[in-house]
């Protein structure tokens, strides 16, 4: 029973991490890649660690509970740190005036800049 819950949590975490990775590779510019990294990374880490913390409780003892609490510490830490790191990286990009990808209003309008030309090659 416990094992099934653990498996469910971890599979869900893996699925979200897969989505994150695909997003990081496929999104057009650095800002939208950070969207994937900031959200997916947090949730998939939380789910995977929650699964491991639960599995750790299958031999119930004081030590096991304390170890699970430590994994909970890591979860809380990631919950605080991951969005903050996302924000810091994005702020750095904004300060360095990395341009964000904009949708073409008409199909004929050229993509401005090197990065967007690359995106045009691999839409």
């Amino acid at each position, binding site marked *: 029973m416990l094992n099934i819950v653990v498996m469910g949590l971890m599979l869900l975490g893996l*699925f*979200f991490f897969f*989505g*994150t990775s*695909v*997003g990081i590779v*496929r*999104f*057009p*510019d650095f*800002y*939208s890649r*950070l*969207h*994937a990294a*900031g*959200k*997916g990374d*947090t*949730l*998939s880490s939380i789910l995977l660690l929650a699964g491991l913390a639960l599995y750790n409780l299958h031999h119930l003892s*004081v*030590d096991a509970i*304390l170890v699970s*609490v*430590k994994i909970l*510490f890591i979860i809380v830490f990631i919950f*605080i740190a991951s*969005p*903050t790191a*996302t*924000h810091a990286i*994005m*702020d750095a990009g*904004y300060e360095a005036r990395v341009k*964000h*990808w*904009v*949708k073409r209003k008409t199909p004929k309008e050229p993509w401005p800049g090197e990065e967007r030309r690359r995106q045009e090659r691999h*839409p």
Partner: protein
Amino acid sequence: MFTLATFIILAGAWLLLSGKFDAFHLALGGISCLLVALISQDLLFHERKKGLAARCGEAFRFLPYSCWLLYQIIVANFHVIQLAISPRLCERELDPHIFTFKTRLKSDFAKFVLANSITLTPGTVTIRIDEDVFHVHAISRKAAGDLETSETMSEMERRVAWVFEGRA
């Protein structure tokens, strides 16, 4: 007063971390907590105007907020995965833009919670906070939602204000 509160919180963290309850290790923990409480007493409780009781209230109101946030995070992830996996949706929906809005939250910590919540919820990431102006990058027009459009306060800001300032 605040140093004592810091000490108690740190002692709790120590007990959970160490998991050894004999006298020697407890004494070591006491010394460590005292040391940290002294060298970083102004960190955990930065704004001294609010009393401890108000902070406990914040902590209690934070719990339902975090449940709502968790739900939002899950929605956000499905959104990201949809955008990432389906090419057509990517083509149609993706319209990144940067917008700014002015917040009414006063304290730094409330701004921090709001900023991280914006980052974790669908389609929006906080870029920076200038005084009380938030710069937000939204991945599509729809995702920006009422953060961009609302004249007074968006839903999320109202919730954060409820947690930290006690008004609805």
